C-alpha cells in the first residue's frame, strides 16, 4: 500500500516533468492533491500513513536543502543539525522537561526562526569558504550540534533525550495517537515548501543564487551582495529543516541525539542527488524514493522476498550494501539524477562534448 501511494506520487511528478503545457501540469497537481487528501479514507492504515508522513517530512527537508545546495550551490553536509535544532525546540518547550507546554503551532514558527538564526550564525563566518571547505565546516557543525545536545544532560536529557512530548492540539482537539494529522500537516508543509521553492527560483533572489552558483565573480560584478544572498539561502533552507524537526519530534513524541547524526545529512544530500539537484520536482521524487527504500523496503525486505520467491533468505545483513549500491549505481549511470533540471542536463551534455573533444 505504501508503494501504491509512493508510485502514484512519483508517477505524477514524472508526468509534471514531461508535460510542458501549464494547464496539464496544474491539472496533475490538483488531481494528485485531491487523491492524497481523499484516498486515506478508503485505502491504507496507520502504518502506511505513518511512513508517508515521515516521508513527507523528509521531502520538506530535501526541499530546504535544495535551496542551499541546488539553488545557491553551497554544499552543506551538516543539514541534520538544523533538523535537530527544530526537534529539540519542540522537545524542550513542549514537554515535562521544563514544565513548558507551548503550543505546537507556535513552536512550528519558533523553530523555523531559531533554525534560520543558527543557519545565519553558522553561515556568517563560513561563507567566505568555497566548495569542499564549506562542506567540511558544515559537516563539523553537523557533528557538533547533536553532541552538544547529548552532553548538556541537564537541559536536553542527555543520551536518553526527552520522551513523552506533548501531543499537539488543533483548536482544542488533541491529535491523540492518530498519525493522520501529521500526514495532513506534512502534506500541507510540502505544498508550502514547493510554493516557496518555486517563488524563490523565479525571483530576484533566485537569480542571484543562480549567478553565485555559476560564477561568483561575475555575480559580484553585477552588484549582487554575495554574503547576504548566501546567508539568505542558509537561513531559508535551515528554517524548512526546523519546521520538519518540530513535525518529526511531535509525531515521534521523542527526541534523542542519535537521531540527527551524519547519516541523516548524507541521506538528505543523497535524496537531492538521486532526484536531480536543483530541480524541485526531481528532489521530491528523490526523497520519496529514498525514504520508501529506507523505511519500508529495507526493514521489510526479508518478508517481501520470502513472500515473493518462497525462500527463507536473510537479507538483513545487506541493508547497508543495498543502500550503498543504489547510490553508486545512480551516480555511475545517471549522475545528473533521475529528473535533472535543465541547467544540470546542459552541464553534463557539455561535459560529454568536452570529453569527446579531449
Amino acid at each position, binding site marked *: 500500500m505504501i508503494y501504491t501511494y509512493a508510485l502514484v506520487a512519483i508517477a505524477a511528478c514524472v508526468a509534471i516533468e514531461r508535460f510542458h503545457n501549464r494547464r496539464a501540469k496544474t491539472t496533475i497537481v490538483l488531481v494528485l492533491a485531491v487523491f492524497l487528501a481523499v484516498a486515506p479514507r478508503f485505502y491504507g492504515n496507520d502504518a502506511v500513513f505513518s511512513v508517508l508522513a515521515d516521508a513527507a517530512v523528509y521531502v520538506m527537508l530535501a526541499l530546504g536543502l535544495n535551496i542551499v545546495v541546488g539553488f545557491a550551490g553551497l554544499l552543506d553536509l551538516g543539514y541534520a543539525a538544523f533538523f535537530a535544532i527544530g526537534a529539540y525546540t519542540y522537545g524542550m518547550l513542549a514537554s515535562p522537561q521544563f514544565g513548558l507546554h507551548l503550543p505546537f503551532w507556535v513552536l512550528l514558527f519558533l523553530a523555523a526562526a531559531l533554525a534560520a538564526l543558527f543557519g545565519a550564525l553558522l553561515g556568517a563566518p563560513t561563507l567566505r569558504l568555497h566548495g*569542499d571547505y564549506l562542506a*567540511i*565546516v558544515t559537516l563539523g557543525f553537523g557533528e557538533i550540534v547533536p553532541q552538544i545536545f547529548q552532553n548538556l544532560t541537564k537541559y536536553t536529557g542527555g543520551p536518553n533525550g526527552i520522551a513523552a512530548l506533548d501531543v499537539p492540539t488543533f483548536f482544542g482537539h488533541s491529535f491523540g495517537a492518530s498519525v493522520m494529522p501529521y500526514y495532513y500537516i506534512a502534506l500541507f508543509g510540502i505544498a508550502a515548501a514547493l510554493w516557496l521553492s518555486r517563488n524563490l527560483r523565479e525571483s530576484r533572489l533566485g537569480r542571484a543564487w543562480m549567478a553565485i552558483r555559476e560564477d561568483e565573480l561575475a555575480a559580484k560584478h553585477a552588484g549582487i551582495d554575495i554574503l547576504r544572498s548566501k546567508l539568505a539561502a542558509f537561513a531559508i533552507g535551515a528554517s524548512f529543516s526546523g519546521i520538519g524537526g518540530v513535525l518529526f519530534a511531535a509525531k515521534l513524541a521523542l527526541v534523542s541525539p542519535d537521531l540527527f547524526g551524519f547519516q541523516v545529512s548524507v541521506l538528505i544530500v543523497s535524496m537531492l542527488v538521486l532526484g536531480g*539537484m536543483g530541480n524541485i520536482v526531481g528532489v521530491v521524487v528523490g526523497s520519496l524514493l529514498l525514504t520508501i527504500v529506507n523505511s519500508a523496503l529495507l526493514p521489510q525486505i526479508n518478508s517481501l522476498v520470502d513472500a515473493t520467491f518462497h525462500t527463507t533468505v536473510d537479507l538483513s*545483513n545487506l541493508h547497508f550494501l543495498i543502500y550503498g549500491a543504489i547510490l*553508486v549505481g545512480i*551516480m555511475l549511470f545517471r549522475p545528473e539524477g533521475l529528473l535533472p533540471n535543465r541547467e544540470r542536463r546542459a552541464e*553534463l551534455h557539455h561535459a560529454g562534448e568536452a570529453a569527446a573533444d579531449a
Partner: protein
Amino acid sequence: MHEFLAQLANGVELGAIYALIALGYTLVYGILELINFAHGDVYTFGSFVALGILVGLRAAGALHGAGLVLGITAALVAAILASALLNAGIERLAYRRLRKAPRLAPLITAIGVSFILENLIELWQGSAPVPFPNVIPNPQLQFGELEVGVQQIVVVALAIVTMVALHFFVQRSKLGKAMRAVAQDRDAASLVGINVDRTIAMTFLIAGALAGVAGFVGGVSFGSAWFLNGFGAGLRAFTAAVLGGIGNIAGAMLGGFLIGLLESFSTWLIGGQWSNVAVFSVLILVLVFRPSGLLGETLPEKV
C-alpha cells in the same frame, strides 16, 4: 608534569595514525579535488588484513623469536598491498568514470562506496570488534619522567619513516613529479606527455598503501579492528588534512599530530565526551580564520 608527558606521548601516537590516514585524503584531494569518503574504510580493511595474517600465523605457531619479526612484517606488507589494491580498484571502478561529472557525483559515489565497504567488511568479519592478538611485546620504558611503551615507539617510528619516505618520493621521483603536475593542471600535464589516468591510479595506490600502514599501526595501537572504525577515524583524519592545508603533505602530517594531541588533551582536561566537539570546533575556527589550513597557500583567483 608526569601526566602531561604521558598525555603528550599518547597524543603523538594517536596523531601518527591520523596523520597516516590524513595523507591518503590529502593525496587524493590534491590530484582530483575529491573527498574520498571511502578512505577510512580502506584503512579498516588494512587493519583486518593485518589482523587475519597475525591470527593465522599465531595459530600456526609461527610467532616466536625471528618468526615474530617476520610475521609482523608479513602482516604489515599484506595490509599495505591489500589496501593499496582496494583503493586503486575503487578508483578504477567507481571514480574514473566520473571525472567529468558534476562535482557532487563523485562525493556521493564515495559515500556509497563507503557504505558498501563497511557492509562487506561486516559480512566478512561480523559486527563486533575483533581483537588483535597481543603479539608485540610492550614493556614500558622510562625516560626521566616520561614513561612510554615499546609499542608506542614502534608505532610512531613506523609512521614517521613512512611519511618521510612519501615526502621524498613525491618531491624527487618521476612519478611524484607527475603527480604534482597532474594536481596542478591536468590538461597541461597530459599535453607534456604525462599519462594522467596512470598517475591518478598510482596516487590511489599510494594513498591506499598509506591507509594500509595506518590500518596495521592503528590495529596494534588500539588493540582491535571493527567494521565501523573507518568512519570516526576517517573523519578525524580528514579534519587533520584540512587543518594542515589539504593537498599539502607536510600539512597533513602536522594536522594529524595536532588532532591527536587535541584529542588526548581534551580528554584529559575537559572530558572525553567533548573531544569530538573540540576537534570539530578547532576545524571550524581554523577554516574560518585561515581557510587554506595551516600550511596551505592561498591562490588568487584567476580572472
